[in-house]
């Protein structure tokens, strides 16, 4: 089976003129057709850059240093401008964090859908598909008149309008209230499932992602440090960082227990990491962790970028 999406050794740097930041430091990711995968990471882990890179949506200050992205068999970074536009139009869908801001504030919802659909589509059916009540009324509304949940459904309808092969959802519920989150996620996943669209869901919430996705990839310091079936990654983390992340969520702690936070703070890389980016915060760090870039280790069902992955799992 050929993968729908393949990211190989992707390194991306931002250069603001004064400061260089290496957002991706050799990231690898494979997504099969029909798969739903959650990419979990804290801010600065590189997950958003990875999501943007898939659609070649990096700003002009971003510079791809190494690596490649294949989407549906095409090398994303080698396509001519028209080619990448066609690829985005036909294969990709994006849903962003702030749903209201991602809609043109000066245009009615129906018109915006119509622009995407062209002459053939019927906006109302698309609004109906994302389970918006009274699509006719919604179509006549302006984005600022929508609630966050409604706006995100509209954004989803637009993203899914052309039946993309892959939907990239970048923290789609971060700006929404708790109960609405579930409803929106429900719609996202079911609409994608109906269309046979793969989902890459970027999030900082390991638990939430694990609940919905079949696979979870954990990012840290610009690399995917652990990748495996959701239940396993959450239940039996192979990478010390994943474990620490899971532990630090207050919701996971039992009442009265003290949280065991990860000491220190996430790194901001200026250049390729010499060793493991998590080394300074890692309770299991050894001498080589600072010097050698960890290789991929297969541990049980997971793949992990950790020198000691195998021994630590065995030990536990």
């Amino acid at each position, binding site marked *: 089976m050929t993968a729908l999406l393949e990211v190989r050794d992707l390194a991306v740097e931002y250069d603001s003129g004064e400061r260089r930041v290496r957002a991706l430091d050799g990231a690898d990711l494979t997504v099969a057709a029909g798969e739903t995968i959650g990419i979990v990471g*804290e*801010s*600065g882990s590189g997950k958003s850059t990875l999501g943007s890179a898939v659609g070649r949506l990096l700003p002009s200050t971003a510079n791809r240093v190494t690596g490649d992205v294949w989407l549906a068999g095409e090398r994303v970074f080698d396509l001519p401008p028209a080619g990448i536009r066609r690829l985005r139009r036909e294969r990709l869908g994006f849903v962003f964090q702030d749903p209201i801001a991602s809609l043109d504030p000066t245009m009615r919802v129906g018109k915006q859908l119509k622009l995407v659909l062209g002459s053939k589509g019927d906006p109302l059916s698309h609004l109906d598909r994302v389970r918006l009540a009274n699509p006719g009324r919604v179509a006549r509304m302006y984005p600022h008149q929508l609630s966050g949940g409604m706006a995100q459904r509209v954004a989803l309808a637009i993203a899914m309008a052309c039946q993309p092969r892959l939907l990239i959802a970048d923290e789609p519920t971060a700006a929404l*209230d*708790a*109960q609405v*989150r*579930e409803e929106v996620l429900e719609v996202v996943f079911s609409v994608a499932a109906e269309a046979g669209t793969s989902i890459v869901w970027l999030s*900082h*919430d*390991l638990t939430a992602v694990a609940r919905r996705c079949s696979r979870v990839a954990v990012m840290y310091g610009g690399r995917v440090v652990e990748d495996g079936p959701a239940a396993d990654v959450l239940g039996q983390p192979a990478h010390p960082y994943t474990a*620490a*992340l899971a*532990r*630090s*969520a*207050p*919701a*996971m*702690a039992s*009442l009265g227990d*003290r*949280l*065991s*936070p*990860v*000491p220190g*703070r*996430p790194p901001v890389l200026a250049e390729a990491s010499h060793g493991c980016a998590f080394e300074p915060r890692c309770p299991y760090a050894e001498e080589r962790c600072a010097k050698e870039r960890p290789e991929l280790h297969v541990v049980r069902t997971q793949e992990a970028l950790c020198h000691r992955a195998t021994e630590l799992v065995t030990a536990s």
Partner: protein
Amino acid sequence: MILELDNVTVTFTAGPPFRREHVHAMRGVSLYVAEGETLGLVGESGSGKTTASRVALGLQRPTAGAVRFEGKPFPKRRRELAGHMQAVLQHPHWSLNPRMRVGASVAEPLAVLGEKAPDRVHEMLERVGLEAGLATRYPHELSGGQRQRVSIARALVTRPRFLVFDEAVSALDVSVQAQILNLIKDLQREFGFSALFISHDLGVVRYIADRIAVMRGGEVVETADTATFYTAPAHEYSKRLLEAL
């Protein structure tokens, strides 16, 4: 009782003259924070919890109802409360004046009271887990977690008896969030302040609060001990909130 809100209603007026619209941000809210306790206030956006925090801090006068601090009604002038209550606010990026050195930010509540105590600033910075040398830095040189630690140091430097945390950890990364939550708990044990902890994140509140109050549409729909609330929520809305957790 350190703080009591007694049947507080806050009504905002909006729109042109002659045809003002009245929006009830709080409707008959009664809450109290006891000595040494942390009250967690949860609710979705627009539920009125931010208005509640502003009322508690004396930044917003209630349209109706009474507020008592340490058993006495709020003084006419907000300044008389200076040093007795402080707040740690939401956004780490905006919580500190970007044009002020960290030390000056921490010292500000003291300066307002006419006190000068560089030692206390340095001591406070160390208490929140920062090096004293950070006092000469500017906020943009600090990480989000460090900034929120500075905010906590600033809030505690006058040793207030009451603190409001308004979404104080919501914008932090998960791994850093835990550090700050632990810090707050440690400091509360050490300084013995009471706190109103406002958050939309039930997980966080569960960890930090002794009691929980749930707001919806400007009203308090349920108040309960943390343990009781999380195991047996009484209100239908509370149940739905917990499902989403």
